């Protein structure tokens, strides 16, 4: 763990005035900085906030937004909201899983892609919907999904 990241964690703690009730907000900021929650960052948080580690671990594993493992360079989300589901989202997910040889929630071995599903992004007119690094791709078909992956593969 580099000292820079610990410094970043310190800054995040200070931003919230060491208020442990904002634990979720702090973890979100760490997740954003590091793309996941590194073990050292959580230990550091424990020491600084004087919050028991099990409590931090419970929060970090309860909420879907957090990951304890490093995420890939590109973050793919497939929306599995009801509207996307009835318009064929499961087939999009399967195609991506097949193309990347990983399951939802996993990261490719080369750390290029992380694939996750999301319950609803509230853009139902675009369904089925996939999001890569925050960019929305609407009205997906399995074929289109494969082509989008290709575009990001060498990026």
């Amino acid at each position, binding site marked *: 763990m580099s000292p820079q990241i610990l410094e970043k964690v310190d800054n995040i703690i200070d931003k919230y005035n060491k208020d442990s009730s904002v634990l979720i907000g702090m973890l979100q900021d760490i997740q954003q900085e590091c793309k996941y929650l590194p073990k050292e960052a959580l230990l550091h948080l424990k020491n600084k906030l004087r919050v028991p580690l099990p409590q931090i671990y419970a929060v970090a594993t309860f*909420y879907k937004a957090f990951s304890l493992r490093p995420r890939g360079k590109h973050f793919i989300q497939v929306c599995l909201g009801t*509207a996307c589901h009835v318009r064929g989202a499961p087939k999009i997910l399967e195609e991506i899983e097949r193309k990347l040889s990983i399951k939802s929630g996993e990261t490719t071995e080369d750390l290029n892609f992380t694939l996750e599903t999301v319950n609803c*992004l509230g853009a*139902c*007119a675009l369904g089925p919907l996939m999001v890569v690094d925050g960019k929305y791709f609407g009205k997906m078909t399995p074929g289109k999904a494969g082509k989008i992956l290709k575009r990001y593969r060498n990026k």
Partner: protein
Amino acid sequence: MEKIKTLEELENFRDSFVKKRDPNKARIAICGGTACRAHAWEELIRAFEAEIEKQELKEKVDISITGCHGFCERGPLVVIHPQRVFYQQVKESDVAEIISETVLNNRIVERLLYIDPVKGEKAIYEDEVDFYKKQQRLIFGNNGKIDPTDITDYIAIGGYISLGKVLTSISPEQVIEEIIKSGLRGRGGGGFSTGRKWLYCRQAEGDIKYVICNADEGDPGAYMDRSLLEGNPHSVLEGMIIGAYAIGAREGYVYVRNEYPLAVKHIKIAIKQAENHGFLGDDILGSGFSFSVKINRGGGAFVCGESTALMTSLEGRVGEPRAKHIHTVESGLWEKPTNLNNVETWANVPLIIAKGADWYAKIGTKSSKGTKIFSLVGKINNTGLVEVPMGITLREIIYDIGGGIPGGKKFKAVQTGGPSGGCVPESMLDLPVDFEELTRVGSMMGSGGMIVVDEDTCMVDVARYFLSFLQDESCGKCTSCREGIKRMLEILTRITQGKGEKGDIELLEELSEVIKDTSLCALGQTAPNPVLTTIRYFRDEYEAHIKDKKCPAKVCRELITYAIDEEKCTGCMRCLKECPQQAIVGERKKPHQILQEKCIKCGICYESCRFDAVKVE
């Protein structure tokens, strides 16, 4: 910006800039909702800016990025004022023509007009479009009129005047009385009387009280709260400040989903602006009343939409609900009296104060007053957000506003109320929509998701979908919810795989009763609803899966096969190349064949065939 200290100062402030605004000045209003932003939207904005620069029109034409207009199916949407010409699916390449034709010469660009898919008629203005005609956009309509990041736009349309009125001339008790009289009920799912909730919280003992805005909109397929927070955040804030005054709270929280980055951004800006103008902070409008609002971003847990779970999450802990024998209005956040309402409920408050409870109570049905925003999605022509008076029928929403089902398909059901709700079949399309009626047929209002499904949707699969969602989202505290949903999901999965057995339906019903009776919070208590309503109205589909091992909608993978129609197949080799399993064989210009033992039923051949030659059997 100097803080505004009295109602009079607020009115003067509003008049000072409203007078300067020329209502006849050309204004290009571009929808800035999430769905519109997904279609090369930034390029579109840049193109408008560049064209205005190029034609030296900066003094003559304004551009404003407004909140969501609701008609997400047709984005990006652009409305040209003052004529109010309504253009849809606007692209970068249309920009120069819009400016030279419509903005400068008042001529219509025909190809950008909305064409009614049923009647084939073109609509020039927003209110000519069928999608908007039957709506009553009291809460949501202002989205299209204002730039949500500019507080003066909100003040210009009468914003914060209700707050001024309340703080200068209405007592907290009178405010509560007015809200009770209006008949407003919580829009988040419970449907409890908002005014009564406020009253109980006011009466609760304690000096420190909190108000919370629940913006953790977790229902899949529902996004009205997101669009309100994105498109008109000040209306939500104004409602919260009025509520806090009535209850006697000095601190408030907005708990918003982190999956809604634009909503988070806009509510942040709104809070800052409200502070700068003196609508938040100490001694608001010189009344002696002080109130501040903080934002908390949710961690992506559906159960946190439940009030007690949301409060424990706000305290920085795992979001588990607790029993409610002591109500949160008496002991909520940090064990202090806490009043929680959802985004849409708060947004109704300034309107009720402005127009009066009597006016408001005239809208809607006997027990459900006002309007409700629904997110009309799924297999529907006009996907979008619709605001309608309570009591309107499902048929009017789906056919008159939603434009019916695409592709000439047959309507099958509408799912309301999210994972806690149920499916309403075609025979009940004339049901007037209000809290009681939806509950009576086994569904519920919920937060307002309305997912339309057609003949190609398998109802057993829909039930399985919701249970799989709920299995993931159950917090795990109650055994019946944690284990019961899992077992129900196993049974449903078996049924969709053609391994259903006699007695499965009855077992599902029995498990449902136990889960309903023995779960602590609404997530568990309502979890069986999607299963129970689909069994109630679509029992034949369950039986077809179990007895005949057939999926009538041809969705369940284990029960279907893909085949090629030799008559229709032209032998173009397209599917053969696309198939990821090399399961299709054949020669050019000769009918192809699918090797069933290799086929994984991914559907890619079906999707890629241009001659409809791939059949599902």
